[in-house]
Every structure is written in structure tokens, then in C-alpha cells.
């Protein structure tokens, strides 16, 4: 599903080049549950952003489902994010003042799906994460764990081929974190492909495969 070859990415700070990804080769197959780990500054967030089509590599090749992502126009990247990828963030990133149901339905709006179908699909997704009883609650009326489950429903609603999670338990206590990880394991068992960034070894353990990054390279 994911094929990367000789991927490079640098940032420019005050006129000097700061290499972040320094030649990564990586393959992830459909159905895998992969954890990307490494100390801060190792480039794992940047790698995740590139996998998630939020950012582009400078050099090297990245193919998602066989499609060459490197060099695609920004409108195509937006399409891929909307159709093939579901994002889960450390800080949930739900839109304030909008109900859980509206938040979950929002990705479908950008795909031009009619309102009735949006509500029905969002309801299904909320049911999947056992949050249907909170559908009309706003984010500030939900606990962190609940918010993250709503965010997972939002990531699932477009039936993406790839779920990407950035420190999904980083803002949660261990009990809620466990619940989220439990959910990830279930989604994995249902056949979803998951890529998760974490620095917590206990969380990383629950994945099939751990990719360790150090100074922008896989070790």
C-alpha cells in the first residue's frame, strides 16, 4: 500500500538547511498495523505528514496505493486526504461549537455527498466507536477519551484505506488511552491499515511492526 524510496525532506531555518528525513525506504502492506517510533526530532512527525499527504518530500518517491504522490498538485493531495486517508490527532482537533455528529459528517461534505447520506454515514461511524449516545454533544461537553473516539469516527467516515494516528493517546490518561488502543486493535482486526506515530514503547508494542527512526533514518 505504501512504497517509499530514498525519501528526503529538509526544512530551511534562517538560510541553513536542516535535514529531517534523510533517505528513507519503507513499505507498508494493506492490513498492517505499524508504529513509527523514535525520539523527538527523529523525523517521525514529518514522515507521518508525508505519508498522510499533508506535506511533500523534497526528493525520492512515495507511492500510495500505487499512485505517485510526490509531485501531485495540491488539489489531488486534498482529494487523497479526503478519500484515501483518515487522520487522528493527538489533540483531537474537533471543530468547536459543532456537534459530534456534525464533526464526523464534515469530511463527507467535501466529497459532495448529500446531507441525508452524510448523516446516515456519520451515525454509522459514531455507532462503530460507541459514541452514538453523544451524537448531539459539542466537543467541550465530552471527555478527552470521548473526543478522541469521535475523532476516530470522523477518520473512519470516508471508509479510507489508510488510518494515520499522531500520538493518539498522548493527551489521554491510561484508562482512556487503553480504550483507544483497544479500538485500534479492533479496527486492525477488521482489516484496516493503521500507521501510528508514538514515543511510548507500551503503545508501540501493540502494533504488528515497529519502525524506529533516528536522525531521519530508519534503524
Amino acid at each position, binding site marked *: 500500500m505504501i512504497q517509499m524510496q530514498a525519501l528526503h525532506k529538509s526544512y530551511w531555518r534562517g538560510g541553513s538547511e536542516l535535514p529531517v528525513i534523510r533517505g528513507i525506504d519503507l513499505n507498508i502492506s494493506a492490513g498492517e498495523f505499524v508504529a513509527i517510533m523514535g525520539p523527538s526530532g527523529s523525523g517521525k512527525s514529518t514522515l507521518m505528514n508525508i505519508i498522510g499527504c*499533508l506535506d511533500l518530500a523534497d526528493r525520492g518517491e512515495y507511492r500510495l496505493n500505487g499512485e505517485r504522490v510526490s509531485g501531485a498538485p495540491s488539489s489531488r493531495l*486534498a482529494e487523497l486526504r479526503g478519500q484515501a486517508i483518515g487522520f487522528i490527532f493527538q489533540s483531537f*482537533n474537533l471543530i468547536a461549537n459543532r456537534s459530534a455528529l456534525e464533526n464526523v459528517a464534515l469530511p463527507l461534505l*467535501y466529497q*459532495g*455527498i448529500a446531507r441525508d447520506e452524510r448523516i446516515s454515514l456519520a451515525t454509522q461511524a459514531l455507532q462503530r466507536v460507541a459514541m452514538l449516545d453523544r451524537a448531539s454533544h459539542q466537543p467541550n461537553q465530552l471527555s478527552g477519551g470521548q473526543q478522541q473516539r469521535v475523532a476516530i469516527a470522523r477518520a473512519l467516515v470516508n471508509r479510507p484505506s489508510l488510518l494515520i494516528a499522531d500520538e493518539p493517546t498522548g493527551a489521554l490518561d491510561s484508562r482512556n488511552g487503553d480504550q483507544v488502543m483497544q479500538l485500534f486493535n479492533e479496527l486492525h482486526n477488521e482489516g484496516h491499515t493503521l500507521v501510528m506515530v508514538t514515543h511510548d514503547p507500551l503503545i508501540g508494542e501493540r502494533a504488528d511492526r515497529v519502525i524506529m527512526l533516528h536522525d531521519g533514518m530508519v534503524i
Partner: protein
Amino acid sequence: MNRLRVFIELTGEAVIALWQNRLRSLLSVLGIAIGIAAVMTVSAVSSGGKQFVLKELETFGLRSLWVFRDYKEKDPQSRVRDSSGIDSRDLKLLKGACCPAVKRLSPVLLAANRPIVQNGNRYSSAQLKGVDANYTGINNDRLTMGRGFQPGDIKGRRPVALIGETVSQDLYPQSENPIGRDLRIGGRRYQVIGVLEYKSRDLLASIGSDGGEDANNRILLPYTQVQQMNGNQQVSYLQAEAVSIAKAEQAADQLRLALQRRYRGSYQYTKITLASYLKTVDRILGGITAMGVVAASTALLVGGIGVAGIMSTAVVERIREIGVRMAIGANRRHILFQFLAEAVLISLAGGMAGLLFGLLLGGTLDLLTGFPLMPTLGGVLTGLIVSVLVGLASGYYPARRAADFLPVEALRRE
């Protein structure tokens, strides 16, 4: 179809965002509303003012023109000079082929002396005018009762009179119908056959532009009668109606040239056309309107800057939301459209509120002052289009900024 639906739904998203910041949205709506109301009031005042002046000018007939001898001319041949330069025997010629731009024409004679006008012991200070049967039509005079002059009244030199409102009140008790009654002018008896409708020239009189005559204190007589009073065949001046307002100058020149040819240059003639007054009115009101529009546009500009400021603030506050929307599939056009829609909606709402406000204001002024303030349909449409344009102009830069964020950058902001 699906693409169109996205943009329709994004307009809904814009409405929700505006509703969630109601107070702020309302204030920016108000800014635009004041600007639009100001622009609209200016245009209503200018069109109302024009109507107002036009209504008074209509009492002369908008296609009217006057031709009379120019008494300032030099006299190269030392001819007899104490003539008006127009004779009733010229009329046949002037009504003929010489002057195709003239639709109809009437001689006007002023009485050489000022005879006493009376009915028993009631007196009138009316001005006497001798005219023919065309005159009331040219001069836009209507009758409240009775009949106008017939050609037979003129040819037969019948002792009949048309009187103005003031004359009617001065000479006859209110209970009495003046039609068929007598009045005496310089001892001669005339029969009243019609009463002229009241004419308002208050504005013109107040700026001294009523030609020095009180339109309601007039007595019209067959010009043949006045010639008999004066003891000669002269005509004081000609009043004519051109075939159109645009042809008024041409018509007046045709009459002048025909007279100059007939008298072989013995007299010079001059003209006045109402059309030239119309132009002057347009020029003055145009100048006032232009100044008003500049002032009102400044108010609108300030409103637009307000919208731009509010939208810039909204973009900064919502960077993270923008990032999230991008992460779940929004492209740059979607983001641009949503913020632009917010600005245009604010502005359009302001436009509509401004129009409503302007209508109320105009209506109130109309009731209070009687000054007609009528916004035109064109003015209303222009107001709405302008408010949409203001929204696009003031929203474009902030929306563009929002759309140009890289998704990773937007998500990183707190």
C-alpha cells in the same frame, strides 16, 4: 453536480460561522448598511430633487420655447424702433413650412396699459395675456371648469376670458360658479368661460425664476381682443412647442430666422427654451449628487475595510480549523470560497439592511417635508450589486491568506 453541492454546502458553513460570531457579524453588517444607506439616500435625494424641479418646470410645458425681439441689438439702418418686431400677420407664415421643428405656436400679447379688472366692487390685480387657442396646450394649462378657447373665439374677437384660481377667488364669492359670469376689464365686459387649474411654482418663485408672473393670477383673453385694446397689430412674443425636447433649440432658431428674413434683418430676435433650463437643472443636481456620492462612498469604503478587518481576524483565529478542514479533504478553493462567502454574506446582508434603512429614512423625510425621495429600481439593484462587490473586494485578501496556508503549517498553529 457533486461539486456544485460542495459549494452550496460551504455557503451553509459560512452562515453557521457567522451565526456563531453574531455580535461581530452584526457590527460589520451595520458598517456596510450605513454606507449603502448613505449612497441610497444621496441617489434618492438627487432623483427626488430632480422630480421636484421638473414638476414645476412642467407648468411651462417641457417642450416650450419663447422667441422675442432682442432689444439690445444695434440699429444699423436707424429704422423705426418702437415695435415688438412681431406682427399678427406674421403668424400665418410662422405656422407654415418655415419651421418644421415647431409643433404649434401661439402669439402672446401683454396689455400696453394696466386696465382695472373688476366685478362690481371686487377687484383683481391679475396680469392680462392675449393668446390664441393653442396657448393652453403649449403652456400645460388645464381647466378645472368650463372650456378653453376655440379658434372661433379668436377669429371672432369674442369678449371671453379664462381666469386663474386667484382671480376667481378675488372676483367671485366662494359659493359662486364663475363660469358664464361677467367681469370688466377697463370698462369692457367679458364673459368667463373657464378656470385654469392651480399651478405650483413656489420653488421657482423663491429663486426668482418664475419669470416674474404669478401663474394663478392670470387672465387669458383672445389676442385679438388685446390687440384692439392696444390699438395695433403687434405681438409681444411667441410661445411655441417643439416637436420634442431635443428639437427645442432648433425650433426656436427656425422661428428666429424666419422672422429675421421676413423683416430683412431690421430686428434681431432672441430665444429661451425650457430645454436649456432642464440642462442647467441636470448640471446643478449632477454636481450636488457627485459630491454626495463621494461622501457616501467614503462611508461604504470604511464599512468595507471593517469587513476586511473582521475577516482577517477570523482567519487568524481559525487557522487550526482551516488545517483540520484541509486534513479531512478540503482543497484551497474550498477554503477560499468559504471565507469569501462569509465576507459576501456580511456585505449583502448589510446591503439589504442599508436599502431598508434608506427606504425608511426616505419615507420619513418624504412624510415630514413633502420632498419626494424615491429610490429607483435601478438604484436598489445597484446597491445590492455594489454590496456584493464590496464583500468580494474586502474578503478576497483574508480568504486568499486562509487558502494559501500549507496544511502542516495550519495544523501546527495553536
